């Protein structure tokens, strides 16, 4: 038997896997074709359409989610690799009845126009705030062994993996700086 790409196909029970992980605190169990990315799993199987498919190649950041608390690009992860992992999407950033301070800052600072990149910006910014708090350096940190401050230059460099076609960058930086200052 041949599959579409012309090579011998793999037995049915071998081409998919069972996987169980936590998304925004809820345990999910799925059987997925091994080729399904985390991004497609969220959007097509779990109805979580916050994360967006901008490029599907790791270049735009619109699919950013948090994996074990760290920001990652969900378009480059096969979901079957995530057994027992914990994932947070933009849908999980807010509390039960109010937005998180970061989200409120995005609203207050007008940090989006069309909003397409915003879920990725928010998840990435959440990761950046934690990385700053842990003292991780960046390419623009002058003293690698010193204290890291949430300056505009630091925030811009750290957010370089999230593109915004509407060019809301200055407001995004302002919203993140405001949130970092409150901590």
């Amino acid at each position: 038997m041949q599959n579409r790409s012309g090579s011998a196909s793999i037995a049915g029970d071998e081409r998919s896997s069972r996987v169980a992980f936590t998304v925004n605190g809820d345990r999910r169990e799925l059987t997925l074709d091994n080729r399904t990315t985390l991004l497609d799993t969220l959007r097509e199987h779990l109805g979580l359409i916050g994360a967006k498919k901008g490029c599907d190649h790791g270049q735009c950041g619109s699919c950013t989610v948090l994996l074990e608390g760290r920001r990652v690009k969900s378009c480059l992860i096969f979901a079957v690799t995530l057994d027992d992992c914990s994932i947070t999407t933009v849908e999980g950033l807010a509390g039960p009845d109010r937005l998180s301070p970061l989200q409120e800052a995005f609203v207050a600072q007008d940090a989006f126009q069309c909003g397409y990149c915003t879920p990725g910006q928010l998840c990435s910014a959440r990761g950046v705030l934690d990385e700053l708090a842990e003292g991780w350096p960046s390419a623009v940190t002058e003293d690698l062994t010193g204290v890291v401050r949430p300056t505009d230059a630091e925030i811009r460099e750290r957010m370089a993996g999230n593109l915004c076609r509407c060019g809301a960058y200055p407001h995004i930086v302002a919203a993140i700086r405001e949130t970092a200052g409150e901590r």
Partner: protein
Amino acid sequence: MREFRYRRPTDVDEAVALLDADPDAAYLAGGTNLVDLMKLGVQRPDLLVDVNRLPLGGVEPLPEGGLRVGATVRNSELAAHPVVRRDYPVLARALLAAASGQVRNMATTAGNLLQRTRCFYFQDTGKACNKRDPGSGCAARHGQNRELAILDWSEECVATHPSDLAVALAALDAVVEVAEPEGTRDVPFVELHRSPGEHPERETTLRRGALITAVRIPPLPAARRSAYLKVRDRASFAFAVGSVAAVLDLDGDVVRDVRLAYGAVAHRPWRAYRAEAELRGRPFTPELAGQAADAELAAARPLRHNGFKVPLIRAVTVRALTELAESRR
């Protein structure tokens, strides 16, 4: 994308045996390169062996000094490690200059070293490419080759190795620990990657199925004064057009020791031994740094669109070394 089977071994021998048994199998680490290339149809494994649950994490200080970095340590974790930041700035800087925060949280040490070239034609299955499809030709040789090699290329392939981390590790004389069906061995970092020659599809000296388990970074006190300068088309989130890793150890004004490596100029991270020989034992001046770069770049054969890389690498060499020399005063 081709369908594939998926395995998640928890010990190294099992992982190596799985790869050994299937010529179409591949290891999957952070996936930031492999998943992308699978989507593009450039790589078509029928079995993915996930290395992420192997006991290959952690950064440990070595008894004789230096560090042992596990294969699955993420690039971000390594860049943030206090010993790397203090003792090996060239390494921290190279890691931080690469990709984006999200990609660095995913990308592993081993995967970074074995990532494939960013040559456009390699990534486009509609184009001739000896690396992807041996014998099909090289569309880049007389095509869009601005980003590609100036040193050590062959008529068969003019691609460059894209990693920033690898350039720093070449300068630091790292050692790669490898597991193969026959057992384990150490590979000096500068011998890990190959020149393209007639077989650009063979990128490393590792046998098929070899698993990188760790990278050892030897002690090098002089590396506390070290730098990584990367030139790229955007200020952030772009691959290098050219880069220089440098360690400079001065005794007064005299160069006691120096390590130099170049990125984005050849099929492998390029250790600049000729330039180092010009510098060692002489009083440091920016002019000497320029002469040293000239000695290294005498062998350069730029392609149609990348002649600018020769003066670029010369200028970046002078700047990196001069800044290090001045930082000691």
